């Protein structure tokens, strides 16, 4: 197999599907935007795809909580199909709202008696925020982050603060290598300080950067989470918004060979099937 088929799943209120599909196409995949109603009616549609991406947006208007309604639909109707998809060595990516869906649908963390032990909730500022942030990858086997150390990408969300029930939850995620992506300081353009390395996935969830380095107050500066297989990954920043040089917020100040960080995520995903 050389060109993987990518399902970009859209629901009412999904709004980053077009550019996300385009990003996968640019990376060499064959992307198709599929409506959730179609998938729920015919879960076997999944079989024709190697990658599923739940893109950004406001699925079902963020009603009740961001991602909750779509997550509820996936769990109630096709949870087994999605697990089988992952177990077959295929990939699932959730970006922004897609990350909110994944974390609330049991594909990244397990649901306990009292519900989920971790979630994405309101930014500490209480506001929606569009801002570019520096990121650093943790000690992770996440397929999407292969050979990536740092990135500079935009976030655009109101409910992106990673929050946990207690400290043990954090330690557990860190031990399993699930804390894949963190907000970080930058010295120069997208260069991450070496000293930050230990902060990503550190043992102290409460040691976090102030706004705007950590733009939403996320516990442990967490910006992205993968499952234990490394094949299911959710991230708050939007890689599909940085696949061209002129999307960088100060590209007019930079050289032509600036690193185009968002592209790599899609290339890593597609390359797995080359």
């Amino acid at each position, binding site marked *: 197999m050389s060109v993987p088929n990518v399902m970009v799943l859209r629901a*009412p*209120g*999904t*709004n*980053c599907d*077009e*550019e996300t599909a*385009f*990003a996968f196409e640019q990376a060499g995949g064959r992307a198709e935007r599929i*409506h959730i*109603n*179609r998938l729920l009616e015919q879960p076997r549609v999944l079989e024709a795809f190697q990658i599923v991406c739940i893109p950004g*947006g*406001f699925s*079902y*208007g*963020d*009603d*009740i909580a961001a991602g*909750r*309604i779509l997550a*509820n*639909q996936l769990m*109630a*109707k096709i949870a087994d199909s999605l697990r089988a998809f992952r177990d077959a060595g295929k990939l699932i990516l959730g970006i922004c709202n897609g990350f909110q869906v994944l974390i609330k649908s049991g594909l990244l963390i397990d649901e306990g008696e*009292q*519900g*989920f032990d*971790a*979630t994405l*909730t*309101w930014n*500490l500022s*209480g*506001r*929606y*925020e*569009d*801002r570019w942030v520096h990121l650093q990858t943790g000690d992770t086997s996440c397929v999407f982050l292969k050979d990536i150390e740092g990135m500079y990408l*935009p976030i*655009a969300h109101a409910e992106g603060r990673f*929050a*946990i*029930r207690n400290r043990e*939850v954090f330690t557990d995620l860190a031990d399993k290598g699930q804390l894949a992506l963190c907000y970080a300081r*930058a010295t120069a353009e997208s260069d991450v300080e070496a000293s930050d390395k230990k902060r990503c996935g550190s043992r102290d969830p409460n040691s976090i950067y*102030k*706004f*705007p*380095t950590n733009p939403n107050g996320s516990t442990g500066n967490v910006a992205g989470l993968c499952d234990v297989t490394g094949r299911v990954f959710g991230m708050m920043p*939007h890689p*599909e*918004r940085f*696949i061209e040089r*002129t*999307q960088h*917020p*100060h590209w*007019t*100040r930079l050289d032509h060979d600036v690193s185009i960080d968002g592209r790599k995520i899609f290339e890593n995903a597609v390359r797995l099937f080359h």
Partner: protein
Amino acid sequence: MLWQITVYPADPQHDRLAHQVANSVRLGVLGLNDQSMSGFQIASAHGFLLQGDLDLATVKKIATKLLTESAVERFEVSRVGDSSEENVEAGHLVYVLPKPGVTDAQADSALAAIQLLGATPSAARTFRRFQVTGLTNEEAQLLASRLLANESIEQVVFGPLQIKQLEIDNRYEFALTRVALREAGDDQLREINQAFQLSLNLVEMQTIQAHFRQLDRDPTDIELETIAQTWSEHCSHKTLAGRIDYCDEHGERHFNNMLKETIFAATQNIRKQLGERDWCVSVFKDNAGVIKFDDQLNLTFKVETHNRPTAIEPYGGANTGIGGVIRDTLGTGMGAKPLCNTDVFCFGDPNTQTRDLPPGVMHPRRIMQGVVSGVRDYGNRMGIPTINGAVFFDQRYLGNPLVFCGNVGMIPQEHSFKQPQHNDLIVSVGGRTGRDGIRGATFSSAELTESSEQTSSGAVQIGNPIIEKIVVDVVLEARDRGLYHAITDCGAGGFSSAVGEMGEEIGAEVWLDKAPLKYQGLSYTEIWISEAQERMVCSVPESHWEEFRDLCMSEGVEATVIGRFVPTGRLQLKYHDNIVGDLDLEFLHQGRPATIRQAEYAPSASLPLSTPSCFLPGESLLSILSSLNVASKHWIIRQYDHEVLGRSVIKPLVGSRNDGPSDAAVIRPRLDSQRGAVIACGMNPYFGDFDTYHMAASSINEAIRNCVAVGADPSRIAILDNFCWGFTDRPTTLGSLVRAALACRDIAEAYGTPFISGKDSLNNEFSYLDSSGKRQTISIPATLLISALGQVADVNQCVTMDFKQAGSLIYQLGQTHAELGGSHFSLVHQLTGGQVPQVDAGSSKALFAAVHQAIIFGWIKACHDLSEGGLSVALAEMSLAGDLGCEVELDSITFDRMRACDVERAQPEYKTIVQLFSESNSRFVVEVATEHQSLFEQHFGDLCQAIGRVQTIPRVTITSQGNPIIDLTIEQIRHAWQRPLDLGGEYQNGDLQ
């Protein structure tokens, strides 16, 4: 059974809602005394009421699995009114719920999601709950009505909830209403006009009367309402497109159609001159103007105002304002795809003391927060980036805040026109019809008073962007499959306007009982004129109806046949078997009597600029940077998603720290092409206080120079006009508008820059009784917003305004004049008089072309236009954005002193003031690399003045004749510029690197 699920922030989570309320209280929005302020405490919860045959275990399961985030929230399930955590003794318990009938999207979503969990409640409603301590009863009431609830759509309940059931049983008994018009005398006509809120004048009422006398019957209420909607200022622009006798210092002029003879005429002349190279496609006809973009695509652009609803309910008003203009895009041609939003607001000073507010006026800070949230929530949820805007503050906007919402769309060339066909079905697509927004069109044409809040709350609409998003998705698919012949949006006037316009040349029969309703109880007239949001009307041939319906259904969009375009030339309205209205379309659209309005303009005598009491140039610069119109709008900009759709090239904030103010925004409409669209605006009401001609000319100049500054081709810029004015029955007010329109004609034609669409909002005055019982009226200043849509062949050539490299040369381009009238220098020093900036169209056209060429040649590293605050502010902004200082010498900037008067020239510091702070049009500051110096200087000749260099030292240093006159650090500048509107406290707590 009615269950109450109350959700609390779990310890130690932040109580976000309570925090926001407490913040506003601290900022003085309620005007509490210090004692109340110090004792004030508040805690919030939110929750759901669920009605149905459910047991406790099921409700708890629903709460755990669906309604709470257990990692950060906890919940309590109780019978309604039995919550154990309600403490009535300790203070005030305030519940806020949507009023019955108001859209509760969260509750609807919850109902659907609960069904997936296997339970079937019959109804749901959301609520917010606040436990408040430390306030008197009166203060708590004030808190509830001002900050906790929005009483036009929400109800407040003090104490535990006492609701028994959620549904309201409200059936509608049909009864045809006829209005006894034929026998009415003039006084009775006025009474009828008042009773039905028709906003028609006596002559119009008499015309309708005569028409029905001829028909030998009285009209029904729905006929009267239809005529009022169609003839409303909002829908027909009867003032500006009407007859006007105008006189000014040049003599008298008569217009048969003022807009047609000024602004449209300029466009027609430009198109004629362009001949085969004409790039306008559809102007002043459709819901938006349409221009060519590339070989396959056209762009659409429309800016709407939504002022009246915003004054009453800022969130809903702004929310539906942006929703409405997006539907304009979708309703243009066969449906354009929305690409980006632009938003411009005018508010009173957010720091106004509550006691200084006229009665019935909402605090400007609350208006601003509501408006920004409304635009944010609609635009972001629709997934349309908001990429450009402006905010203008003046106390004359206290009672009449202005909200301009714009949208740019793209449409394949072959879909740019529409034509409904005989016997097509009239199909309503999208949201359901409710009582929301009834009489919005007539309301928006009336003057506001202190009681508007009570009489007009029906005119407030609440949007649901997710419905609109799925409508856009499905409509564009149906367009590409060729499933309909025409489309338009349901805007002001609802079905009445949409069907009336679409069927204007054919005729229509409408079956009002078929329209899907949000709830029962609507009369046939309410269905017809409701302005419920998120509805489009399509003209679908019978042969395509099934496919159209199935497509809509597959994506969860409701589509319903509500009538047929029948070739009768009549508009026939039915409710079940009853004919409730039958109007001749010719009368409806052509029957409005032409009134001749008087307009006069007498230019005010020019007065010398008064003298500043004390002049320290650095202090003046910092004051201007801190003045509200100039200060950074990052608090607003960052709440908008400006990058969704992946097309962003130049963002609203640019520079090394992403915090410099860009002149214009640039996007790539096609993901696979480097051709760009440029969006900018120009507006300056202060200039209008001097002369609306020069204000209009300056606004056009500003909008164009903003586009040119980032790289737009000046020969390919299209513009829009939005006139917001006072009471235009007053000849001087109308005169000032006509004068502005004349400038629009002159300047547009001189530049070859066509107007392609426009909109006006008149009678923006607020009247109230002051403390002595006297009626006072505040009129907004004459406000003309010019929005510009430019194009750039290759976005890689675009330029931003931040200084790029130490050692580069700095030039000022264009001619400075002694023009400080209406300037921000005058504003911060409270000066009067002076010359208002004017536009020399010939020389500026040449300059714009020269700048564009230099940008293409790659000689310009940074470019910023000179506007509010003149040269000094431009330099300060370029430095802070680039994090690089500059060293500037003013001596090469010369100007013609003849424009100033003797008194001004006599001031010793006069020359410096002009050089630093004059707001003359058609000027830029540019940064040029030393290697391009000679080419650049040859190219511009006399038009450029070398003024200094970019430096690594983080200071802005300006000297005149060897003497330092300004020496500020970038940090001082950033501080002055960023703090005033830093409402989120970003620069107080942050660890900015």
